[in-house]
């Protein structure tokens, strides 16, 4: 068992952890929760030897330990599985599993490829995975890669596994498999630290939960004895109220209509209508084609067939530039690769989609730009030291707000939101919901793709569900339950 007590850590005088404690018992799954910037990852980096603590004590099985490097922690069986998987996509599964710990003939450096492949099969079958060890790792789903990552940890005799947002990119089916694996390992005495923003998952799988806020320890609870509201209150330090704020909205005329939208090989025959002031949810498993439909409406993919109408008029969208001219905005799924220029400042990111507006005859108008940026920083409550702060240094929630601000600047009449709250802490989530509500109330038609069913149900007026490139269902507010949506999303199969 691991006991961390009185842990403090400061970077350049900036205190990020102060007198924090954490305990991980044998065979326990312990959630670590807190808003972005609460100190979760710093705490785990201290536990895994990446950072050294300024003060405090770490005890493993009753003995005080000092970690000088990740190697020291690894020797005691502490392994971290990061959110961005450490897999080399072009290597085979076996090569990845033994990366850095290859089996060789003595010290020659000549690889025992056969033996490693055999071992790999053994290891993976223990976790219920039958894969040819010669498969290229990049060809596997993220879920399978995640399990390979766990297999790798077990291969190095891990006793304590820290998982950082393990389910962020997984489908529900894959999450199920992952949880089964984790529970089996737990029964064998392996302990897990589980970091996640998804409350439902924590309640489904964890035994205890420790909550941090602003670098301080708030408390620990046994999962069966606590509830959602208590944990949220502990996390934000105040009552948050309704998780999904009320919206007072008059739904108007049809704004956007798509008919028989098809992109060969990705999705077929998608038809739906989106009205002014309406939030239309798009649910479905990952890979069901939701994002691709959005990209097509936005002119980022060429459609093979079908028509798009705005205000009843057929439009022709060949590029994002065309889509923007028709008043469409698109908050993309992955803010780091598609939404932001990370090296740009907040200001430059917000004005990126608004360069025409911030200039005349091609010359930038500083005052225009500055006042627009200042307005959105204030309106969206972007927490920053100033508009010149680099986007890279912002927390996930604030980065997401910058992406939203960029699109609000274009004053869209149709706003597509693809996973608007992924990786965003609970306080910022609620603020984003508020923004969505305000937009809808002002008559913007909103298409919201989301994998978080509670979010879809809480926010959408209507939801359409996709499965493997096809539209399989439409559900009205009254009939929206997770079960109904999942049935459509999985093609009618019962989900357990």
């Amino acid at each position: 068992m691991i006991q961390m007590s009185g842990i403090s850590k400061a970077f350049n005088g900036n205190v990020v952890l102060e007198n924090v404690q954490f305990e991980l018992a044998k065979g326990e799954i312990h959630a670590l929760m807190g808003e972005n910037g609460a100190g979760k990852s710093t705490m785990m980096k201290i536990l895994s030897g990446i950072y050294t603590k300024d003060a405090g004590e770490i005890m493993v099985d009753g003995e005080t330990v000092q970690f000088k490097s990740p190697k020291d922690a690894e020797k005691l069986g502490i392994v971290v599985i990061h959110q961005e998987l450490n897999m080399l996509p072009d290597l085979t599964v076996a090569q990845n599993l033994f990366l850095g710990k290859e089996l060789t003939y003595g010290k020659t450096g000549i690889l025992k490829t056969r033996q490693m492949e055999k071992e790999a099969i053994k290891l993976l079958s223990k976790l219920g995975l039958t894969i040819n060890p010669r498969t290229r790792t990049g060809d596997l789903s993220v879920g399978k890669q995640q399990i390979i990552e766990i297999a790798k940890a077990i291969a190095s005799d891990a006793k304590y596994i820290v998982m950082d947002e393990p389910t962020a990119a997984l489908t529900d089916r894959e999450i199920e498999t992952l949880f089964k694996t984790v529970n089996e390992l737990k029964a064998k005495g392996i302990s897990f630290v589980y970091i996640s923003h998804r409350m439902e998952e924590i309640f489904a799988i964890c035994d205890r939960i420790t909550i941090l806020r602003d670098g301080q320890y708030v408390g620990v609870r046994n999962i069966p004895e606590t509830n959602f509201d208590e944990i949220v209150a502990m996390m934000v330090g105040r009552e948050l109220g309704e998780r999904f704020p009320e919206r007072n909205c008059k739904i108007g005329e049809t704004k956007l209509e798509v008919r028989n939208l098809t992109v060969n090989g990705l999705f077929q025959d998608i038809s739906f209508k989106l009205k002014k002031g309406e939030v239309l949810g798009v649910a479905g498993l990952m890979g069901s084609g939701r994002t691709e439909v959005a990209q097509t409406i936005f002119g980022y993919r060429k459609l093979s067939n079908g028509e798009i109408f705005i205000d009843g008029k057929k439009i022709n969208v060949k590029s994002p530039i065309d889509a923007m001219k028709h008043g469409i905005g698109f908050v993309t799924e992955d803010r780091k690769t598609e939404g932001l220029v990370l090296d740009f400042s907040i200001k430059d990111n917000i004005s990126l989609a608004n360069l025409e507006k911030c200039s005349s005859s091609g010359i930038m108008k500083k005052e225009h730009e500055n006042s627009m940026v200042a307005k959105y920083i204030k309106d969206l409550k972007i927490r920053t030291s100033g508009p010149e702060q680099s986007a890279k240094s912002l927390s996930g929630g604030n980065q997401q707000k910058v992406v939203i601000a960029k699109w609000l600047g274009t004053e869209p009449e149709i706003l597509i939101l693809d996973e608007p709250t992924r990786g965003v802490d609970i306080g910022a989530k609620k603020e984003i919901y508020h923004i969505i509500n305000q937009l809808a109330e002002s008559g913007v038609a909103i298409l919201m793709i989301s994998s978080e069913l509670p979010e879809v149900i809480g926010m959408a007026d209507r939801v359409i569900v996709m499965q493997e490139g096809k539209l399989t269902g439409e559900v009205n507010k009254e009939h929206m339950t997770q079960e109904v949506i999942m049935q459509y999303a999985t093609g009618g199969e019962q989900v357990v």
Partner: protein
Amino acid sequence: MSNYKSKELVSKLGPLFGLILLIIIVSILNPSFLSIANIFNVLRQVSISAIIAFGMTFVILTGGIDLSVGSTLALTGAIAASLLSSGMDPFLTIGISLIIGLILGAINGVIITKGKVAPFIATLATMTIYRGLTLVFTDGRPISDLGNHYSFQLFGKGYFLGFPVPVVTMVIAFIVLYFILQKTTFGRRVYAVGGNEEAAKLSGINTDRVKIAVYAITGLLASLAALILTSRLNSAQPTAGQSYELDAIAAVVLGGTSLNGGKGWIIGTLIGALIIGVLNNGMNLIGVSSFWQQVVKGIVILIAVLMDRKKTA
């Protein structure tokens, strides 16, 4: 976060300190470095490489590279020389040469964007093609019978308000390009394409057009450099401009612009070009053998890059 800006400033000023240090060392070792005649000499030499490097800065900011600048210089120089020797009006010659440079550059841009060829490969190919065309066009011989056009000779040899015309040209080019990069929407788009092309595209930026434009600008600037060189030498050499692309890339990198694109500034490139110019001139003055000069230049580039790495690490 408060030291974010000051840190950035220090890393940006690094090359300037390097240049000043270099000037001090060279002038101690040979005080004649600081004579007006020599300073003008250095600046005149730098003007050609700096003008090319300015264009290269745009290309590198978008995350690309242009290896064809030296060949573009040779080809447009040869065309200008032959137009002059055939008796064409010098101003018309200058105009035509610049347009041809622009087109040669734009061809690079089109191959890279529409043909989806990596910039390194695309411009490696056009570098060879343009050089070959120069040799075909000149039959491998220099063109030196340019006639006696006072206005064209001014371009490379004249003085304006007491300053050499090439230096004045370089300064004007610098000011215009600085303005474009820092104050216009196009400049912002250049940085955005290099910073995150996907995000730029999804923000409604025509990234292909931006890229074609930067290669066209680079071609235009290479032909401007060609005109200065041709005027100064009063002839066009088919082998002119060889390895100029490497000097230009070196100047950009010395100036602190990232080869990954999205980060950098054109003032740095000017400083980088000056560092290379002072280094060349200084080593000549001190009497370093030309063989050793190459070794020293390479080491200076390495030191600059290594120091930059340390700062960003």
